[in-house]
């Protein structure tokens, strides 16, 4: 073999044939498709989000346009110059409400005395809708009655100016005046106000408290019925500002004595350090992620072991329980090797082979005949036994 010759390519290679412009172009070609798809996805997402106005589905929420919402009332109030503030937290009520504002409370299932204390302290006019417990908590002169039953048409039957202006409303509920300072209106049809009505007004320490036992008059669905609108607007529009308070389940207690969570224990610096660590991780990913040139591939050779076909044949014999075939092969192999050892031709007749083997091994010829030409075995043990016997015979022949 010749000594290796060094080959040098005459012209040195400078650059990879690209310019900044061509690289930018190829990058753009490579990325425009993914970028386009991403942009399309963003656009579709935005379009899907757009027709959905900012509304909620909370009952009597001022931004709820469903039949059970109260957007109609809130919008009318807004048009009339009332500053409607929708809040879900008592802290916001405390911040926004003052003596010259109205606070509307819808439902009292999620509040406790700390909330009612705050409501009392604001000094604002209170309007309590569907809040029996809060009524008894905030006023001593009105007693909560049941609010069951479907809304029915009721007339004022009292001399409260708001109720009189409304005339009739559709509502249910039986609110009772416990003393003379409270006025109760809209009793059930055919009964007196002393039996309880849907609307009541009282004044507690210069704080006017109006109570509506039923949510129905406020809803979008029923606002236009009878005099509902008149009552609601007069009730809520007494001041420039209306704080629309619907208690939220996740509102912390007004006292601020909530159970300390993990968020209170962790110092705020940890979050910022976490952000910084994110940056470090991003840079580290860039550092490790950029390969120094492409991965070089290579065709791999086929790997087929030579013994595979033989093993496959063995498995075929076994699966088809071909004891006859297997035994014939073992016998023929042993006979061929023994014959070669004894100098017999491959084409020797069986009788000659038997005689020669019997002589060489010192066995009886009928034994040798049974071993070499006997009936084939019928099970695994028989075949294994035959193989062992043939091995013995062969070793005896080879020893001779």
């Amino acid at each position, binding site marked *: 073999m010749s000594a*290796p010759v060094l080959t040098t390519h005459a012209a040195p290679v400078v650059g*990879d044939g690209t310019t900044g412009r061509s690289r930018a172009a190829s990058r753009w070609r490579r990325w425009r498709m993914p970028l386009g798809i991403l942009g399309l996805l963003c656009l579709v997402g935005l379009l899907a989000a757009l027709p959905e106005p900012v509304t909620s589905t909370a009952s009597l929420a001022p931004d709820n346009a469903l039949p059970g919402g109260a957007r109609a009332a809130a919008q009318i109030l807004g048009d009339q110059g009332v500053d409607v503030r929708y809040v879900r937290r008592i802290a916001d009520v405390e911040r926004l409400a003052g003596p010259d504002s109205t606070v509307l409370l819808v439902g009292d299932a999620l509040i406790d005395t700390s909330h009612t204390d705050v409501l009392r302290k604001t000094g604002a006019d209170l309007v309590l809708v569907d809040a029996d417990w809060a009524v008894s908590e905030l006023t001593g002169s009105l007693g909560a009655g049941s609010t069951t039953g479907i809304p029915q048409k009721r007339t004022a039957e009292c001399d409260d100016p708001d109720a009189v202006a409304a005339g009739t409303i559709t509502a249910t509920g039986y609110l009772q005046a416990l003393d003379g300072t409270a006025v109760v209106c809209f009793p059930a049809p055919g009964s007196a106000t002393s039996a309880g009505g849907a609307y009541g007004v009282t004044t507690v320490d210069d704080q006017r408290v109006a109570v509506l036992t039923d949510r129905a008059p406020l809803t979008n669905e029923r606002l236009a019925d009878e005099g509902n609108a008149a009552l609601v607007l007069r009730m809520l529009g007494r001041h420039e500002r209306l704080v629309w308070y619907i208690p939220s389940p996740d509102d912390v207690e007004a006292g601020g004595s909530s159970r300390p969570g993990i968020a209170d224990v962790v110092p705020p610096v940890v979050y910022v350090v976490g952000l*910084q660590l994110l940056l*470090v991780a991003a*840079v580290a990913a860039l550092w490790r992620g950029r390969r*120094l040139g492409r991965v070089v591939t290579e065709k791999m050779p*086929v*790997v087929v072991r030579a013994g595979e076909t033989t093993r496959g044949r063995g498995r*075929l*014999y076994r699966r088809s329980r071909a004891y006859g075939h297997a035994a014939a092969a073992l016998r023929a192999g042993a006979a061929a090797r023994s014959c070669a050892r004894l100098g017999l031709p491959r084409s020797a007749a069986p009788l000659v082979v038997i005689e020669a083997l019997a002589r060489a091994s010192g066995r009886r010829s009928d034994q040798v005949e049974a071993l070499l030409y006997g009936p084939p075995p019928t099970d695994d043990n028989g075949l294994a036994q035959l193989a062992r016997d043939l091995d013995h015979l062969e070793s005896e022949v080879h020893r001779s």
Partner: protein
Amino acid sequence: MAVTWRAVALAAAGILAVVLLPATGTVLLWTVLVLVVCVLDALLAASPRQVAVRREVPSSVRLTEAARSTLTLTNVGRRKLRALVRDAWPPSSGADDNRHRIEVPAGDGRRVTTTLRPTRRGDAHADLVTIRTFGPLGLAGRQASLTVPGRLRVLPEFASRKHLPSRLARLRELDGRAAVQVRGPGTEFDSLREYVIGDDVRAIDWRATARRADVVVRTWRPERDRRVLIVLDTSRTSAVRVQDAPRIDASIEAALLLAALATRAGDRVELIVYDRTVRGRVAGQSGPRVMPAFADALALAEPQLIEADWAGIVGQVRQRLSQRALVVLLSALDPAAVEHGLLGVVNQLTERHQVVLASVADPEVDALRSARHDAAAVFDAAAAERVGLERAAVAVRLRQRGVEVLDALPDNLAPKLADTYLALKAAGRL
């Protein structure tokens, strides 16, 4: 653009700033700082496209030996080049340590060397040369991959050359045996010399004896200028793995040893690599040019997963050879393949030439045959027994047609084929 661990360290240093001034703004500011510094550093780095790269690589190397791929990098830009260079080769080329860190002032050059230890025969083509340059701060850099062509032909190992000296000695013995050799067919007259006791009296040349006072005998030497045609079969049977290497590797070793031996013996050796078409050929070479040509042609011989076209092989042989020659078929003694291919056409070869079929035997079949440890093993043994019988039967049929059949383990094939050649030569059957 690429960043280094220093950029990560710079980003990590921001943690200190954040602890001192814990605000989201600090993180944002630090991010912008890292970004700006990295981009500036990358912009200040020398361009990887302003480097002239020249490659030097040996044209060929023998398998298991090491070769060196040398890259000469010249900085043709105006900035100082700090770079990491990767000289990429396919995995089987064994370029393990192929990353080099260099610093080259403007206008200067550097040489980096990658050591290749190929593990596969054939042509290895160099992949891209990747240059990543770093800025003055070493924070970030730029990267480009250049196509710098290079080809390394990995020649067969020729491990069987260790058998060559002993076979050459045997060849010289053949020469020397002339005096006592029977004057048989196929031996050539060499010279006359004085009779010594022990010489065959039938070798006495009476005319020459009459002319001179002494008794003179004729001496003989083996025939020279015989033709040997080696046919390497690269069809599917050559792809089979015996022990750890495909069959074709053992065949190539045998072909190389035979070519070396026959060339020294003064015969003309030719090679055809064939399956359904000619994959390689060596013809018309003589003397010292034979072995390089063989190594070159055999380096590229790869097994193809197709059936051999034996009629085509016979056609090639008839086209190449007009007179009697030794035709060595390096194939497999695979009963099915031989019965459907070679047996049908071998008569056309044997009627004019001496044919030798050299096949690689599989030691695994022998191991299977003697296994007895469970029922499955006995069935495998029976299958191995059957395969052995079929091989023997097919070998007998080939011998009946005048073919010398050689079935040897991979390591033994080359010396056995050499011995067969010597035996044929001694018997004057070439």
